[in-house]
């Protein structure tokens, strides 16, 4: 797309959309939202960038390698956080009994492992959306 208005507006809007996505992920345990909604927001901002600036420019920002790493990394973070419960003598995915910080209700650092799991889910959903979109929109040169 070669329109100066669309390009300028996108360049201004994308950071704000991504910041809102990070806000939704980090506040998942105190306000509505969470990993799935926030990850979808960040993924949608990258889809907007891809539509406006083309696949080539977007893959410099979010490469295949970064996609592969975050795709597996999201699940690995989730499993590692779950295994803390086993190490501390409880069940898999034990929350407060495993020694996670309970904190004050409503504070950003509260809820034990819930914010950590939300970050893992957010990474996973973001990379799923953008990897799927890039895999489908890439054209075979031959």
């Amino acid at each position, binding site marked *: 797309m070669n329109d100066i208005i669309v390009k300028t507006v996108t360049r201004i809007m994308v950071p704000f959309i991504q910041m809102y996505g990070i806000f939704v992920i980090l506040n998942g345990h105190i306000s*509505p939202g969470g*990993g799935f909604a926030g990850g979808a927001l960040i993924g949608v901002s990258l889809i907007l960038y891809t539509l406006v600036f083309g696949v080539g420019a977007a893959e410099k920002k979010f490469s295949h390698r970064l996609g592969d790493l975050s795709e597996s990394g999201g699940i690995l973070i989730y499993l590692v956080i779950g295994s803390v419960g086993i190490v501390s003598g409880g069940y898999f995915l034990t929350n407060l009994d495993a020694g996670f910080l309970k904190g004050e209700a409503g504070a950003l650092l509260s809820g034990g*492992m819930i914010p950590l799991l939300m970050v893992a889910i957010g990474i*996973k959903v973001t990379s*799923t959306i953008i990897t799927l979109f890039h895999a489908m929109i890439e054209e075979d040169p031959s």
Partner: protein
Amino acid sequence: MMKRLISVLFFALFLALSYAVLQMPPAGTPDAPSYNHTTEHYLANALEETGATNVVAAILTDYRAWDTLGETIVLFTAIVAVISVLRKRPTAEVIRDE
């Protein structure tokens, strides 16, 4: 003949299901069967047991964390399937030439 019989059967089924829908309690009533002691326990104890003020997040990533792990694995499997079919492989041409 057979077609007509089947359509009569389906119409009877439709009438029975419509009657069943009309018997359901209206949405949001507190005495609906889906509001049982599990709901009450979550609403009363979620803040104490998890420390999160968002009960939905507490259910998703504490009480039902296994379910969310399964959801995440479903996403992973879907993306692996899509990539294995759609992504370009630059080595494919080379292998064919040899």
